């Protein structure tokens, strides 16, 4: 029996040496020390055949203890093994695509206005002249129409040159108050380093009781602080749109000098977009009760804000879809 014990011990040691992972070790444990394992079988056998059952049992159990110790040492050794790998070798590629930089800007803009309760809406891109111009206080033949070089589908159907064509569509729904943001494609017949025939504008509109210029300012300030940074502010300057009265141009403080003036901005301010209190004719055309309600609207180009933040030198790059451009964002 002593021989058998020694043989078993040697076998265990050999297997333990060969074992290279925890899973193999666990299997060795079951094979040797499990209920039906080799040690228990040996014990049962030896005790059955032995004359001095007590001392045989003790001998086997002593050997078992020693073997367990050998096992545990090996396990300890294996579990605390530290491997050497070249950690500077390249990582494997996990799939990683790119959302277009304009999509990212739109998502951010929508989120900023969602924070103050502006619900995202969408409307037609191919629209009737009424919604794009006439209803916005620009009757046929009005020189103000020249300011947008418009694509025509028929005499009175256009590709909308501005998101303002959604204003009357929204008011017509008859649900007040209105707090909406429309971010959509617009079209103008113009191509150069800072203009493309298809671009995006975002337009916000609020129609409610007792709406004033201060609330417009507050809304615009909220946007620039969240989009450009907490130290940025807006200012309003007089301008003219047919569909707002008063009308404004909106500036934001320069990101470089924060309003002091520098070689980038000269005056300390950078033009952002346009805004105004909705013209009563427009409210009327939308079926809104002028006695009770008024509103403001604001809007500007999405690509412009993207370029302000990324320094893309030529707007046409945005829709050329070169992978070397797309993968930068």
């Amino acid at each position, binding site marked *: 029996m002593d021989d058998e014990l020694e043989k078993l011990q040697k076998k265990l040691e050999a297997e333990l040496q060969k074992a290279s992972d925890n899973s193999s070790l666990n299997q060795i444990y079951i094979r040797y020390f499990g209920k039906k394992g080799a040690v228990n079988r040996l014990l049962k056998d030896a005790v059955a055949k032995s004359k001095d059952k007590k001392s045989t049992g003790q001998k086997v159990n002593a050997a078992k203890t020693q073997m367990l110790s050998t096992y545990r040492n090996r396990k300890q050794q294996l579990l605390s093994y530290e491997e050497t790998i070249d950690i500077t070798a390249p990582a494997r590629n996990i799939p*990683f*695509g*790119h*959302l*277009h930089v304009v*999509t990212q800007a739109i*998502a951010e803009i929508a989120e900023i206005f969602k924070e*103050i*309760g502006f*619900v*995202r*809406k969408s409307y*037609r*891109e*191919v*629209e009737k002249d009424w919604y794009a111009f006439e209803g916005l206080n620009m009757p046929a*033949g009005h*020189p103000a129409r020249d300011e947008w070089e418009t*694509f*025509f*589908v*028929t005499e*009175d*159907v256009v590709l909308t040159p501005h998101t303002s064509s959604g204003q009357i569509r929204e008011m017509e729904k008859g649900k*007040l*108050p209105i*707090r*909406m943001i429309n971010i959509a*494609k617009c079209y103008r*017949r113009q*191509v150069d380093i800072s203009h493309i*025939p*298809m671009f995006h504008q975002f337009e916000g509109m609020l129609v*409610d*009781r007792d*709406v004033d*210029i*201060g*609330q*417009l*300012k*507050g*809304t*615009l*300030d909220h946007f620039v602080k969240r989009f450009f940074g907490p130290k940025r502010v807006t*200012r309003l*300057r*007089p*301008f003219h749109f047919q569909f707002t*009265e008063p*009308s404004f141009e909106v500036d934001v403080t320069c990101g470089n000098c924060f309003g002091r003036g520098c070689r980038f901005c000269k005056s300390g301010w950078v033009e952002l977009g346009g805004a105004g*209190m909705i*013209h*009563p004719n427009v409210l009327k055309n939308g079926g809104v009760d002028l006695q009770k309600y*008024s509103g403001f609207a604001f809007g500007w180009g999405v690509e412009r804000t993207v370029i302000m933040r990324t320094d893309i030198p030529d707007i046409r790059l945005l829709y*050329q879809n*070169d*992978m070397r451009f*797309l*993968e930068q964002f």
Partner: protein
Amino acid sequence: MDIKIGYNWLQDYLETKATAYQIAEKMSLCGPSFEKVVKDGADYVFEVEVTSNRPDSASVYGIAQEAAAILPRFGIDARLAPQIEKYADLSPESRPLLPLKVNLKKDNFGSRFMALVLDGVKIAKSPKIVQKRLKQAGIRPINNIVDTTNYVMVALGQPMHAFDYDKISTHALSLRESRDGEEIVTLDGFRRVLTSGLVVGEDNGKLIDLCGVMGGKLSEVDQSTKRVLLFVQTYNPVKIRQTTQATALRTEAANLYEKGLDPEKVVSGLQMAASMIKDLTGAKIASEVIDIYKDRPKEKTVKLTYEQVKKVLGVEIPKTEIKRILEALGFKVSLGVLELAARVPTWRLGDIDIPEDLIEEIARIYGYSKIAGRLPSGDLPEDQVDEIFYWIDLVKKSLSDWGLSEVYNYSLTNKELLKACEVREDAVTIMNPLTQDMTVLRTSLLPGLLENTCQNRVAGDLAFFELSKIYLPTKDKLPEEKLTLGIILYGPKFDFFYSKGVITTLFSVLKISDVAFEPISKEYFSSGAAVVAGGESLGEIGRISGQVADKFGLDGKVYWAELDFEKLGRMARRTASFKTIPRYPPVVEDISFLVDNSLPAQKVVTTVENASRLLKKVTIIDIFDGASAKDKRSLTLRLEFQSTKPLKVKDIKPEKSKILAQLVRIGAKIR
């Protein structure tokens, strides 16, 4: 309207010590936008953007008027110096009087026409200061007569024209509408063919003036001119716009006339021009002054309540200050208890109509910077959230997370490109395209994405998607704008089943179950499937035909999928309903068998699924094409049997027999 005026010239009308930069800065805050201040020796040139509703500001005097109202608000002393009063006298100075008439064929040409003749003109170059100021304004100096008309136009915002009196045989200005096909040679030397209805000046059958836009060469003032006919007027803006649209000829004068000018300024313009010509050339007024002034502007008074002002500004301005502001702008104001009445000056009759117009005047001069910003505190709109935006964001994010990159293609394309891709050519057409490659609205996302692939084809594996609209003509006025998802895959990494995987995983993200793929045949597919769910076709997926791919220089396999995103959005779900987790583990068994290649894999699966009710899941885990028999392939299915009680071998055996029987029935050979 962009105008350029000199700082020194401005000081002819504006008494102020303000520097050019100060003027530019303060004016931009309360009035027209001073875009640039350019140093010009000891002088400066302002580049000002005057909005189209304020033609009264589009002149040196107009800017001076605004400055006199605005600069004092910043503590800068500024006063209007009304120089034009100096030129009051227009009585004739030489006898006999030269004949002069103005005949208007129709009465809708304009509200005021004035004319007179000056004799003894000596044509010469204008004085240096006149030339300098004209150049600052972007106008080329020609001679003292022409320069005078331009000088007055820039100074007062009143355009006018000077004719050589002796070249007009009838000594009359006869204005009528043009006839279709009539010709005129304008001062720039171009012969122009006119359409009917444009206001023209005629002398004995010949056209001598394209009214309000450009004079005619026949009556041109040149070196030999001795007598000048000065013609100053306000034209009907609609008629002048008709001319500029028809001839595509835009001039400074037309720009002003189109906006509608103040008829009261006509006389100032005439006075200033006549006086200037007398000074510069020694000429004398040699005719009576003609003044046809019908439709004198009616006096307009606009009423405004203080409550209204407060409501729009959010701030209360004392009524005395309101009065001060409006009167500085030329309004005559009487203050009542609850409201004020403001009489509109003649030069603002074109743009002041409603109380809101007055509010703008008050607010801008008061100063927008004085109004504090605060967030709107009204009620939020009742929930009308459109779920589609959620789905758009989710799908875009998922696709980009899986390695696809998003592109934006122009909605405008051309018929040739649509044809090359074998997609719908019947498209919404643009009447006035900008370029020949953008003449219609796209009917499919495929052409754009094929171009993107072609353009980037050296960049290795390409995976692009676009989620935006296609435009389909309808029998109504407005086309259908369909939100569509297009996905294109190109490169050795991809095959049909990869692209199928993108689609099926996308449907899992949208929680749309039971997606099926049914064979479909399209001109641009070499093999394709319709994507079907909920009994509806949601789109298609397939491999682009070699012919189409070749047109784009793509010699590898191109995989394409296009889905109707609105339909997807309607079927998508945000939450799933909970399915009880089985208490007992499933019994899993694999079976392999040979089937004909022509038997669709899905049919095999469905047959097996229908064979046993204990089957929870049947998955194809292997398809082996290199089977021993020709036209046959080997399928291995993993069967998961599940019950609410623990399953024993004796439960599974009869189910397996049923399954095997059904498989044999469809021609499978079990291994």
